[in-house]
């Protein structure tokens, strides 16, 4: 018997491209009753309502992970349709055009911009930036919640309209969230950011 109300659960796929820990992400989606499967299968990705690009490690390793699995075009095509996408940490960085970590490497070019190393930090702050830090809107309003960061490289989108969140570390303001339509990239780890992070995951699920 078919229900007369629509109870479709969105199909969310976490792309497994060999970099980073997927368990925490799966756990975060499970928290909201959503079973987000990890997969590197082209068809799974094609038929998903939304995809998540996790990732920890170097820019080059990330792009290589996608290339050897033949996933670069899949991800680009998914983005071209403006279907919901969430990139996390390295997953956010590879959304940009190029990365300057240990050389210059081509990214997915879904959001124009570069990924460069933190520079000229004040107060002898260490690199990588490890710990909790606040995000504010480009307009200036603070979100009043901290999120967990661990990174040495930062997002540098070309266009102001792709900057959705800003954070300051060592006196340097950097882009902590990029956005292009339904495509978001967070430099921080929502799955490691307690309740504030879970809110981000919830909003992403609701946006689908």
């Amino acid at each position: 018997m078919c229900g007369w109300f629509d109870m479709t659960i969105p199909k969310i796929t976490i792309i497994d491209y060999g970099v980073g820990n997927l368990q925490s992400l799966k756990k975060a989606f499970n928290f909201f009753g959503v079973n987000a499967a990890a997969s590197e299968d082209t068809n799974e990705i094609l038929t998903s309502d939304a995809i998540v690009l996790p990732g920890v490690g170097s820019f080059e390793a990330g792009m290589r992970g996608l290339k050897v699995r033949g996933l670069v075009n899949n991800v680009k095509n998914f983005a071209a349709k403006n279907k919901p996408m969430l990139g996390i940490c390295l997953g956010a960085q590879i959304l940009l055009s190029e990365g300057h970590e240990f050389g210059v490497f081509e990214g997915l070019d879904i959001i124009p911009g570069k990924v460069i190393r933190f520079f000229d930090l004040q107060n002898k702050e260490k690199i990588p930036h490890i710990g909790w830090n606040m995000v504010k809107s480009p307009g200036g309003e603070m979100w009043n919640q901290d999120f967990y960061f661990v990174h040495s490289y930062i997002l540098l989108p070309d266009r102001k309209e792709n900057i959705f969140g800003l954070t300051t570390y060592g006196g340097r303001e950097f882009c902590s969230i990029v956005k292009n339509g339904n495509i978001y990239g967070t430099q921080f780890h929502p799955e490691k950011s307690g309740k504030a992070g879970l809110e981000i995951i919830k909003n992403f699920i609701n946006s689908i």
Partner: protein
Amino acid sequence: MKNIRVIPLLNIKGPNVVKPVHTEALRVVGNPKVLAETYYNEGADELIYLDIVASLYQRNLDFDLLKSVTENIFIPVTVGGGIRSVHDINNALRSGADKVAINTYAIHHPEFLTEAAKEFGSQCIVLYIEAKKQQDGIYEAYTDGGREHSGLDAVLWARRAIDLGVGEILITSVDQDGTMRGYDLDLIKKIADFSTVPIIAHGGAGALESIEQVITKAKTDAVSASSIFHYKESNICSVKNYLRGKNINVRMV
């Protein structure tokens, strides 16, 4: 200034959280899952989970227990205890760890730190040092849950490990651990002075002033404590409120 992280540390033996005092006595202080979830809900910034007999008994930590303990918490978890291979690290990560802490095996095979950092990234590899002050004032690094001499100068070992690729250093004072009489400021400062990677201080947290001091005097990047939390001498909130009152930035929840 950046937020200082406040990190409860759970020493695990079998199914229990235990608290060693000078590594001679072990007292059961609680249930790992209950404590982990309590600390998470109280606003802990991260959690450290160390199986203190894995190396001694030459076995692995209980990955199933780890999975259960981390099931309902969404903050970074650093796991240590008998980590001896890339396979062990993979198992830890799959069971809920975000970072692994390595002590004993790295002292005997320093190149493992580089191998691990290359495979998982430096940010995933934490050097764990158990340091005990010797007669001549030099700190010696201990292994196997703070029981065995290594003959290594702990401070020089820390310097070397940074070159080998570790992303953070967790330093415990074996002398102060469990006493709640204050951190070993000298030890922490010696390493903080040259370390280019974040330091987490542990061992001796007692009065709230002692936590402030290890931050302002010894320049640690993060503070870790066991006894004061497990024995309910204090709690995460009180510590954070106190630090905030002293103009030290911390994440408020």
